[in-house]
Structures are given as C-alpha cells and as structure tokens.
C-alpha cells in the first residue's frame, strides 16, 4: 500500500496535509475525520498517562480542541498521527504536572468497576472466571504502570499500548532513538519489579507469569515480535 502511494508520487504525509488543508478551507468533515481516526488513540494515551477515566475524557476534549485550533498549521513534515500524539503528550504533561501528581498509589489508578479500560477487555468468548481474572490482572498492570516515572511510562505506553515504532516514539517525544530504547527497557524492568511486589498475600508465584498464563494472546506472535 505504502509502495503504491510512493509509486504514484503521493507522499504519505501529503494525504494528512490535504486533510489539514480541507480543515483550513472550512470543510467540517475534515475535522470529523481526524476525530474518528484518532479519538480512541488519544483517549487511551490520556487514560494511561493520567490513570483516571474522567480526567482522560477532559484531556481528550482539550486535546482535540487544540487540534481543531491548530490543524491548519500542520505542515506535513511529520505524519499527522505523530503530530497529534505530540499535541496530546504536551497537553497531558502540562495539565498533569501542574495540577496533580503524576503517580498514583497502586489500586487507585482505575476505579472499582474497571472503567479505566479494563472493562473493554471483555471478550464474549471468554468465560466469567477468566474475565474476572483478566480484569483483576488488568487493574494490577494499570496500577503498576501508574507508578512508573513519567518518562518511562510515556515510552512504554507509546510502544506497548499504542504500538508505535521506536522511530515514531522518538519523533513524538523529541528524543533520540537510543533514548527511546533505554526508556522502554528501563520502564519494562521497573514494571516487572512492581508487578512482582504486587503479588497478593499467600500467592508467591510471580504475578507476571500468572498474567501470561491467563492471557491467551500472550502465547502467540512471539516469532513475529522477534523478527527484525
């Protein structure tokens, strides 16, 4: 697909640029399209950086308001996705650092009914017991993630939850790829340590292992991940 566009002489960012230009010409469908494409992405970034669904909703609204105001200044030098991630990250950093602590105690990161995103993992093909285990483990992981120092949390969220490449993360964070590599590794290592200390009393097996045992998706795709 990418090759086809390049062969046709259409840069990938040109399509993003066209969207921005439509917006500046007053085409309201352009902004609708931007929202449809990126709302889930932005909301989940805000959710994982703030640890609070209500805060994440407010952040998402403000972020898209910024996007609405400044979309006409998008120059197409980067992908629109990178640009929006950048806007979102800056806004989250500003607001979260100014008005509330960036980390939360374990267990407070999501509310009791799992609306911090864990509710969405429900898969009708999975049994109630399996879903309960998954929800519980999801809360543990969210709690541990919320305790990571912000630079590590940002890198891990962008990589493991948003699926960005190291190069894309470097562009979003404005750092070198080597820095991204280091932050992801250190973030994951700290996460592993936190998850180990979060094993419930009486359960001495490694929680990270329990997580993988309970996750049917964890056993597949390893080969693909390892391929360079």
């Amino acid at each position: 697909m990418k090759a086809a566009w390049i062969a046709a002489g259409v840069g990938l960012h040109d399509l993003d640029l066209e969207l921005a230009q439509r917006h500046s010409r007053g085409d309201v469908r352009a902004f609708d399209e931007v929202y449809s494409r990126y709302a889930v992405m932005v909301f989940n970034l805000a959710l994982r950086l703030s640890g609070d669904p209500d805060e994440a909703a407010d952040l998402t609204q403000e972020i898209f308001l910024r996007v609405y105001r400044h979309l006409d200044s998008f120059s197409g030098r980067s992908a629109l996705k990178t640009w929006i991630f950048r806007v979102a990250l800056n806004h989250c950093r500003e607001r979260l650092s100014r008005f509330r602590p960036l980390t939360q105690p374990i267990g407070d990161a999501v509310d009791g009914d799992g609306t911090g995103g864990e509710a969405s993992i429900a898969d009708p093909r999975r049994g109630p017991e399996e879903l309960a285990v998954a929800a519980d483990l999801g809360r543990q992981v969210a709690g541990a993630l919320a305790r990571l120092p912000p630079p590590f949390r940002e890198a891990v969220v962008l990589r493991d939850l948003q699926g960005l490449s190291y190069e894309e993360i470097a562009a979003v964070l404005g750092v070198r790829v080597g820095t991204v590599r280091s932050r992801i590794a250190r973030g994951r290592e700290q996460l592993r340590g936190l998850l180990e200390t979060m094993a419930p009393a009486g359960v001495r097996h490694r929680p990270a292992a329990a997580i993988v045992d309970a996750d049917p998706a964890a056993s597949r795709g390893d080969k693909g991940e390892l391929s360079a």
Partner: protein
Amino acid sequence: MSGHISLESLSAYLDGETAPSETRRLEAHLAACAPCSSRLEATRRVVGGLRFLRPAPPPPDLPARLEDRIAVERADAGARRGGLDRLSSLRSLRSVRSWLWWQGLPPLHGSFSAARPLVTAGLALLVAMLLLQNGESGVGLVSPAPKLPHAGPEFLVSEAFGEAPQVLPQTTSEVAGRVFVWSDDVWVQRGVDAGPAGQPRAVAARSPAGRAMLAKLSDLDVLLADGSRVVLRYNTETVELWNGS
C-alpha cells in the same frame, strides 16, 4: 559476545528493533545462555501483561461535548471580530513579558527568585485591567490561540502568590544534540537565556529563513507541532521560531 546481553538489547530484540547483524548475535548468545534467556522471558511476560490493558472507547458523549466547545469557539471568534481584540492585548502583554525576560530579569523557567513574584503580580494586575476594559469577567474557556490558557487566572494567581506547582513540568527534548526545556508554553534551548541582551529575532517557520532553519534541524518541527514557540541559538543570534507564515 562476552558477558550477558543488556536489558536494552533484550527489550529492543523483543520489539524487532535490532539490526539484522545484532539480531543474529543476540540469537546465538541466547541459544547458549540460560540467564539471558530467562531475562528475555521475564521481559516478554511484562509485555504480555500489558495486553490486559485493552483500548477503552472514549465516553459516548465526548463528540457532543467537543462540538459544544467548538461552537463556543466559533461564536467567540465572531464576537471578537466586532469589538476590541482582547487577544491582541494579551499578545502585547506577552511581548512585554518576553521583553522583560530578555532584558535580563529572572528567567521564566528558572528557580523562583525574589523578583519574579512581584513581576508576575504586576502582570496579573495588567491582565485583570485589560479584561475589565473589555467588559469581561475573565478569560474565556475557549481561546483562539494556544497561549491564552496559560495566561488564565488560575496560573497567574498561583504565580502571583509565589506558589510554585508541586510538580514542575519535567519536559525536555533533544534536537540535534541541543536540549530544549518546556517553559511557560515555549520550548527554550537550555542555556540560551544567558545570551545577548535584546529581543530575539522572531522567525516564522514557513518563511524562507524558517524553512532554512528547519531544513538543518528538522526535528524542531515536532516541538513546534502544537503551536508552541521555540527559542534557540541559531548561528550567533537568538531566534524565536514560531509555527506560522
């Protein structure tokens, strides 16, 4: 390969972010080293655990809320066209702040010195006077420029009484070996505040000069992306780069 594989390499290998030659070396080592294989598995388990955080849908009322805000924004813009432009007043104010800063007063992003609260209190008073002149009760929720939210009453009151935020923004970025610090909605190249006196030369990113700068430091456009400005030392002069034409 001597010794064990670093965590960084294991993590990058897991993500398929190692070069083919490095991948081959790592795989040869992993095949013969139980401790490294064990650490790789531990990292893989952590990544697997993150799969439990599946994407959550945004609240269903979010589009409607956003539409309302945008409608306010449009109405606000329409009303502004007919009367005194409070934005231009605030822009002038920002220029004053910028001018004071560049004349050697305490840096906006440095530690809070004794003079800074006084300066900020004065600026807060000016903002209040400007808003009263416009017959408005305060800065609107929706502003037509990215700078305005930072000039809102909450921010200024906090500074006027010398109450620094509990957690200062930690944002830094590296571009072509330069470190930039996010400071009061401007990216400032670290160390640039010790530069020559006088106002920095303002350069629009889309002007020929701006394009030439971005061609040399292309990562800067990422910093400019959300409408913020970048203050940097470029050749021998201090330049404020902004995302406009």
